[in-house]
């Protein structure tokens, strides 16, 4: 009974998110048909521009499912971009080495923050707040100047268009094929992998158990500390990878980069149906959360005369909507959970 309700709640939230995205996008296609909104490339651009954010939001979903949070990811992205740029431009590293260092930085953040959160049981908000300051500070220490990446391998990766077998004819009568960048492939693969991890592995299921009720997870014999630790390490790794994808999009290291990205990632996860209190969430939902954010920005840019601050306002309205929705589902499932427990209890008593 309890389980069924919870699954229904998750599915319902996911459904709402996807429906919301579809509705917004189709509305955009109708209203802005003359402004190119219906072009397939417009849709692909959502992925191209948000590939890094997508990967980072997947990592955040993992820790949010355990009931935690990570607000250091934006700084990790800035640090990763800066270190990669510095290593390739000033220290003679190759692009592959820079990628490895980027991933190591992410993992290092994950290990330290994960240890503090899971073994020393410090509030994740405070731990990752420290991580956020540290990351941004270190970025500025390396350089306060912009570093432009001119490494040939790196630029080849960044500019490697993968053409798709469809496109559109532009007004000069030229056929323009749709394309994506390798970053999109990586991001989509990550979404699929994390989705499988969450759904079909013991580790993934234990994250839901911990987030749902840590006490009962311990009683069930789960190694809660270890699982949480692993969630943060994986989150750190994804922040490192996401940072590198972000860097491939911007081709530069700069201390002001990715400011507020953590909040974009958190809001994407929440819009995608992840509960801040933990226990509920899917990466597919998070992906749609990211796409919704991208679509709002795209709609407002296409409109052309509205202030771009409307993106924030629309996002806040959406966030509000989803939080209320979650609260309703949360309270109904709790009610059901309670009656379910009582039911079980009486059953056991009868058996005794």
């Amino acid at each position: 009974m309890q389980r069924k309700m919870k699954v229904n709640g998750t599915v319902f939230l996911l459904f709402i998110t996807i429906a919301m995205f579809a509705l917004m996008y189709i509305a955009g296609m109708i209203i802005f048909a003359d402004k190119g909104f219906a072009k397939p490339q417009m849709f692909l651009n959502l992925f191209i521009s948000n590939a890094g954010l997508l990967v980072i939001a997947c990592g955040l979903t993992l820790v949010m499912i355990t009931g935690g949070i990570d607000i250091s990811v934006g700084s990790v992205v800035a640090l990763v971009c800066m270190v990669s740029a510095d290593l390739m431009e000033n220290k003679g590293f190759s692009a592959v080495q820079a990628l490895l260092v980027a991933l190591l930085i992410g993992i290092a953040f994950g290990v330290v923050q994960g240890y503090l959160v899971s073994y020393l049981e410090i509030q994740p908000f405070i731990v990752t707040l420290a991580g956020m300051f540290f990351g941004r500070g270190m970025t500025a220490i390396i350089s306060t100047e912009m570093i432009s990446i001119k490494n040939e391998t790196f630029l080849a990766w960044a500019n490697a268009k993968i053409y798709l077998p469809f496109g559109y004819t532009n007004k000069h009568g030229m056929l323009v094929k749709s394309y994506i960048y390798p970053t999109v492939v990586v991001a989509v693969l990550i979404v699929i992998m994390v989705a499988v991890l969450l759904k079909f592995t013991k580790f993934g299921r234990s994250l839901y158990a911990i987030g749902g009720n840590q006490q009962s997870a311990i009683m069930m014999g789960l190694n809660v500390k270890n699982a949480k630790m692993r969630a943060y390490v994986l989150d750190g790794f994804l922040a490192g990878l996401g940072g590198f994808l972000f860097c491939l999009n911007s081709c530069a290291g700069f201390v002001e980069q990715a400011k507020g990205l953590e909040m974009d990632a958190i809001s994407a996860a929440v819009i995608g149906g992840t509960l801040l209190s933990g226990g509920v969430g899917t990466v597919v939902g998070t992906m749609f959360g990211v796409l919704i954010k991208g679509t709002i920005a795209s709609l407002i840019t296409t409109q052309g005369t509205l202030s771009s601050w409307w993106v924030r306002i629309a996002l806040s309205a959406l966030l509000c909507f989803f939080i209320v929705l979650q609260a309703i589902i949360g309270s109904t499932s709790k009610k059901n959970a309670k009656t379910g427990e009582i039911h079980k209890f009486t059953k056991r008593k009868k058996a005794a």
Partner: protein
Amino acid sequence: MKKKVLSLLLCGVMVMGTLVGCGSSGSSDGGSSDGGSDSGDTITVGFSQVGAESDWRTANTASMKETFSEENGYTLIFDDAQQKQENQITAIRNFIQQEVDYIVLAPVTETGWDTVLQEAKDAGIPVIIVDRMVDVSDDSLYTAWVGSDFRAEGNKACEWLNAFAEAKGINAGDLNIVDIQGTIGASAQIGRSEGLNDAVKKYGWNLVAQQTGEFTQAKGQEVMESLLKQNDNINVVYCENDNEAFGAIDALEAAGYKVGDDIANGEVMVMSFDSTNAGLTDVLSGKITVNTECNPLHGPRVEEIIKKLQSGKDVDQLQYVDESIFAVDDTVTSIEAETSLGETSKYDVTVVTQDVIDGRAY
């Protein structure tokens, strides 16, 4: 439960309201303008602006909006990037899909534009960069750049000082100058400092000290205070923007100096750059003696480029906006200074009156 469902519905309505709100205003807009897809009567321009962080920036945006208005035969798609490069990249991709005729970009950062500018080039859309320069591996990725010639600004100010000293019969060696520099590494700082350094060598002035005031009033004041403690012979203060000049004037007056152009009788002359409204007001009152303009009105020059491109003409890749120089009186009426392109041009010095200040947009 009923209450909750109700609140949910209300939230839903609110969200829809926001969306429909954007939508309806959008469709009416789409109806009145022909967009880019129609024949050639209106020209669609996508403009990605840094943000609205300063008066200069606001004036820059206003100039673009004014120039590319519907009355002038343009449809302007304006996007404020809120200081984020990633927003600008997304906006440019959006412009490309909308098949705008021209993209105008005021970049947040100098680097990181290769990929997206390549996309614009592949789509055959000319890109015009304004204000800051972009640092790209291939210069053909943008069609033209429009901005301020900071080096020429520095040269102009120094040529004015030289002409002033000659007119007043002051020996070059008696000019004891301190330079309150801008944020080190900013292109405005580099150009204006270089202009001064070269002039010091050329005319044999005495450069007492150079220190950064980071383009702020507070820092400008602090630097001026410490410079006054170390030296008692300063008679010219070369401030690299108006804010620094305000700080320096406060420090000078607090230390008992008189600010003005009568160097021979112990006054300290303040020179400044930018020519903002407040800066020119100080020129009018005589506190700042000379103020070299940094013109944010890029719209007309960008339009000129677009018109040339429309008629199939070639354009110069680097183009500077016209900038003048303002002074407290007509001791010097005109100067000749070299630009970054190596040409020497003649500039008339504008004497500041209330009418001049009122007639300016920023």
